[in-house]
């Protein structure tokens, strides 16, 4: 009996220890990036291993935020994450609500049409041609319209609206509202918690937009943050040779390029970390719905 207790204790200790290591391994790169972005340049060059800076400075951030192109890219990403999210919610919500009403004719046909796109994706070039033919290349809308929603989101939201009883809308209909009025004034406010959850996921998706921008945006001035960040990471000094001009970080700098890179990574991470607590509240449920039908 005694021996068993001892073994259990050891197991718990080792298990907790391993989990601690895993947790630290997850957070450490982020921590290291943050502290180095605040490290004084002189110290950065003199010390090789810095786990806690002696001199703190905001130089890297001042430098970045005084750069026109960087600020533009942030505002584009903010635009995507706000306007794009709103549009995504409306389009997904409207469609999901409509097909969740059982009286709707052709709802099966519409769902099948949606679900087929789940199974078969024609690849990059056919989509690229559509975006080009519609004239969206180099437009910020090319980063919103082609990714407004997906079969997956429609399906998930429909599942949510399915649980709203018909009696509710019937009452409102008697008061003289039409379906759009009911959707806007009753269904949406009722589903606020779910909308917030979906909205957060849309917003993270828009904030992280990279691949579509790579395909559809050639003009530096229209780059969202992720694309600019990637270019900075690859080479922060030679940028600006393209059509956009003016991404000239001084090479004889007061700020080393490495700290600049880290500050840029931190700036791109901050919004995610800000919404993370809210995300965490919602996602466990979402991820479960997303993986197995109950």
């Amino acid at each position, binding site marked *: 009996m005694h021996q068993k207790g001892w073994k259990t204790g050891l197991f718990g200790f080792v*298990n907790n220890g391993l*989990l601690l290591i895993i947790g630290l391994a997850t957070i450490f790169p982020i921590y290291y990036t943050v502290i180095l972005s605040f490290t004084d340049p002189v110290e950065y060059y003199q010390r090789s291993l810095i786990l806690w800076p002696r001199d703190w400075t905001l130089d890297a951030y001042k430098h970045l935020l005084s750069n026109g192109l960087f600020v533009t890219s942030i505002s584009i990403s903010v635009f995507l994450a706000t306007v794009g999210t709103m549009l995504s919610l409306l389009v997904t919500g409207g469609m999901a609500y409509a097909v969740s*009403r059982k009286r709707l004719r052709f709802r099966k046909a519409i769902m099948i049409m949606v679900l087929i796109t789940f199974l078969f994706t024609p690849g990059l070039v056919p989509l*690229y041609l*559509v975006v080009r033919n519609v004239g969206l290349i180099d437009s910020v809308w090319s980063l919103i319209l082609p990714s407004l929603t997906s079969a997956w989101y429609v399906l998930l939201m429909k599942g949510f609206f399915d649980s709203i009883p018909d009696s509710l809308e019937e009452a409102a209909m008697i008061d003289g509202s039409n379906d759009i009025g009911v959707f806007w004034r009753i269904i949406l406010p009722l589903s606020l918690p779910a909308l917030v959850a979906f909205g957060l996921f849309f917003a*993270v998706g828009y904030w992280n937009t990279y691949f579509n921008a790579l395909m559809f945006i050639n003009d530096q001035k229209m780059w969202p943050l992720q694309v600019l960040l990637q270019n900075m990471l690859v080479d922060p000094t030679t940028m600006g040779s393209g059509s956009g001009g003016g991404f000239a970080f001084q090479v004889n700098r007061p700020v080393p390029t490495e700290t600049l890179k880290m500050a840029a*990574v931190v700036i791109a991470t901050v919004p995610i970390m800000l919404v*993370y607590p809210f995300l965490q509240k919602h996602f466990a449920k979402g991820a479960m719905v997303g993986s*197995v039908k109950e």
Partner: protein
Amino acid sequence: MKAQETVQSAKGSGSPPIPAKSKTKWGRIRSDVARDKYLYMLALPGLIFFIIFKYIPITNLVIAFQEYSPYFGVFGSPWVGFEHFARFFSNDDFWMLLRNTLAISFLSLIFFFPAPIILALMLNEVRSSFYKRTIQSLVYIPHFLSWVLIYGLTYLMFSQSEGLFNKWLVTMDWGTVDILSNPNYFWGMLTAQSIWKEVGWGTIIFLAAIAGVDPQLYEAAVMDGAGRRRRIWHITLPAMRNVILILLILRLGTIMDTGFEQIYLMMNAPVTNVAEVFDTYVYRVGIRQGEFSYSTAIGLFKSIVGVILVVSANRLARRYGQESLY
């Protein structure tokens, strides 16, 4: 209108048409649609989205059988049959892409797939719920970071000149290691990155399966003298079995999808030969070099293989799992 007439005339020519009350099928449909016109308007933006950005691209696939030129457009370009496919399959690049895709997918299957299962089992054994939640909060974070950020973090940790790892090696007087542009390390590094990003997130589904276990089962097992290992083996794992099986089968269905962003970002000249996969190749040849038809053919080939894999995977899943997939 026409349908209405034929239905009526088929009912017998002698009797006069029965008015309003018992409408024909088409009449009913029309009045239903009129009644729900606002619902259709709600669905309309979504429908337009799916048509423009999901269905028109499918029709654009015809250029895989043409020599597409923007001047003649999608339907006016000259037809070349299967020429692009023939060119692709006889190209050495095809075998390189296939090898890289399969290698990356199988590494992910062997190392990435079981990782969240193991982590979920470990988390499940934690007594203190505060400690458990803290660790969970930490390991979920990377799921929400973009691949660009992860590329940045990887660079800042492992680059030869500036990475922390190499700085540490230098202080230990062990020289430096080139990790990011070494073809031998590339696949392993991709797998490690994926695990770092998604292992925590992946545990959610397994933890949910574990949460469904009746605690009495554990109590009974303890009474019977089962140790921790036996409880995991005979209670926890069987509870996860269905989920594991279904996810595994689904994973098999997406073997061709290695993900574009991660590989594209990590790719550099010395590792191109082991890094190029179908998606990155299509992007480079199609969109960068403008060979639309050729790259569409490659994309179409990949999509068709993908559909076959997913459909057969679903068949398998339905056979083994009690739960259906959609």
